[in-house]
Structure formats: C-alpha cells, structure tokens
C-alpha cells in the first residue's frame, strides 16, 4: 500500500467494511473479496497510478453505503435458522438436560451463520457446560462445609462452616464461583443480542 491509488482502494474497502455492520462473517468476507477482485480486474486496463481512472471505477461500483444496503437488506432472506432462538438458552442451561443439552447448543451455534467466529469461541470457552459447572462447584463446596459443620456441635456451628468450607482462600473460591456464574450468563445475553441484531 505505497501509492495513492492503492490507498484509495484500501479506503474504499474499509468504508465498505464499516458499513457492513452486522453482516455475518463469511458473507461479509466474501463480499469484500469479490469487490476487491472487481477493482483488481477493472484496474488491469489502467496505468496503476491512474487516479482519475480509479475514481471512475469506484464511481461505477457505487457508494459503499448502497452496496451495504443491498447486502444488509438481503439479510432476512438468508433466513437465520429457527434453532438460533434456543442456542443462548442451551449454552446457558443445556448442561442440566442430561449433560448433552449444552453440546447440542454448541453444535447449533457453530452451524449457524448468525454468530461470528469470536462469538462462537467465546460461547464455547466461557464456560464449558454453562451454569452446570458452578452448580457442581457449589455442590462440592457445600459438601465440604457440611463436613466441618458436623464436627462442631453446639452454637458456633455456623461460623465453623463458613471458615472451613473452602480449603483454599475463601475470597478466591467466591471469585471463581462468581466468574463461572456470571460468565455464562453474560455470554448468553451477548449471544441473544447478536441474534436479535442479525
């Protein structure tokens, strides 16, 4: 990207990319690719430094806004899969459905064009199993505190429970629990928001 004309092409493609907003990743990439190919093809008849010629090419292509409008206006016709609606729920709570509900959610997520790669990675990694994981964690914590509770008969049972419930520092345990609870909820909300915008 050294010459003025090359920069002109890059600017045009960047403006188009900015206009494409919520267009799903694969569709967006292909459109940008094809417009770039079109410009390369059209420029073959020109001197590489011919700025006026390049302006004519970009003018014939039309405003990036008009191209984006055609692409985004067409988006509903791509008909997002109906299963998209349940994906955020399955990713969040699917773990409780025989453990496979989460897996089903993840498969539906990856097979839908509604979400981009980064959404899919995020939902898969934060947190595998969704809310099942913190519930399992809580179960283990509860079991541990129950043990210490039985060791202290009389009034101060409650205080013994809370201090000995977690072997590792209590704040750390609470933080882990918070992250594993809030993480999947925030991710599910994010997935749902992306779905509604698409």
């Amino acid at each position, binding site marked *: 990207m050294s010459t003025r004309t090359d920069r002109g092409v890059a600017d045009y493609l960047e403006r188009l990319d900015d206009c494409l907003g919520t267009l799903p990743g694969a*569709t967006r990439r*292909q*459109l940008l690719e*094809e*417009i770039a*190919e*079109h410009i*390369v*093809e*059209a420029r*073959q008849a020109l001197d590489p430094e011919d700025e006026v010629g390049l302006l004519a090419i970009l003018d*014939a*292509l*039309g*405003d*990036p806004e*008009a*191209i984006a*409008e*055609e*692409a985004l*206006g*067409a988006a509903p*016709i*791509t008909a997002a899969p109906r299963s998209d609606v349940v994906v955020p729920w399955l990713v969040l709570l699917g773990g409780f459905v025989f453990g496979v509900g989460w897996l089903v959610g993840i498969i539906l997520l990856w097979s839908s064009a509604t979400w981009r790669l980064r959404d899919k990675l995020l939902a898969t990694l934060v947190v595998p199993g969704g809310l099942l994981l913190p519930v399992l964690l809580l179960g283990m914590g509860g079991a541990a505190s129950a043990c210490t509770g039985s060791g202290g008969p009389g009034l101060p049972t409650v205080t013994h429970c809370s201090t000995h419930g977690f072997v590792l520092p209590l704040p750390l345990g609470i933080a882990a629990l918070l992250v594993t609870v809030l993480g999947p909820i925030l991710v599910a909300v994010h997935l749902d928001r992306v779905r509604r915008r698409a």
Partner: protein
Amino acid sequence: MVAGEDRDPVAQLRRGVAEPCVLALLRAGERYGFDLARELAGVGGLVAGEGTVYPLLARLRRRQLVETTWKESAQGPPRRYYRLTAKGKAELDAFVEQWRQFRFTVDAVLEGDR
C-alpha cells in the same frame, strides 16, 4: 435503508426483478462476476451500481440458484465464474412465465381508460 425509498414503487419493482435478470444473463452459459456486474449496471435502471450486483449474487448462491467455480485467467488472477443450477433454471423459467402474465395485466390496467 433510505427513508421514502420503500414507498417508491419503481425501486420496489427494480429490487424484485434484478435477481431474475441476473439468472437470465446466465442462461446462455457461465459468466464471471466482473462481467455480470458490468453488463447489469450497463443496461441502466436495474441496479444502483456495479457493486450492488455482488450482494445479489451472494443471495442467489445461498438460495442455490447459482453456483461458482474458479477458473484460471490468461491475464491476472483466477476468476470466479457463476452458472445457473437446475433449481435456478427452474426459477427463471417460472419467473419468465409469471412476468408475461404480470406485464400483460399491468399494461391492460394502465392503458384501460385511454
């Protein structure tokens, strides 16, 4: 969306016929995208610019009415060629038939009171 354009009947009409027109351009055989974009924009009034042909082609491809293949070109990088699928051919034939009817009806109504 440009406000007001939705109410422009010609814009609406154009939007509806642009896709079948692309299919029609492919009836004689495969073409590459650049060529299609130039021709469609060249006839005037059908698409806003050469660039809007590409989202349109993408839509036709998703609906499996056209398919693409890569071909080496004598000069420059390989080109993406578009061709009609059997489904696309059927859709085009159906549209041509409906369009004949439609055109006849609209003409009859528009010119009826002359």
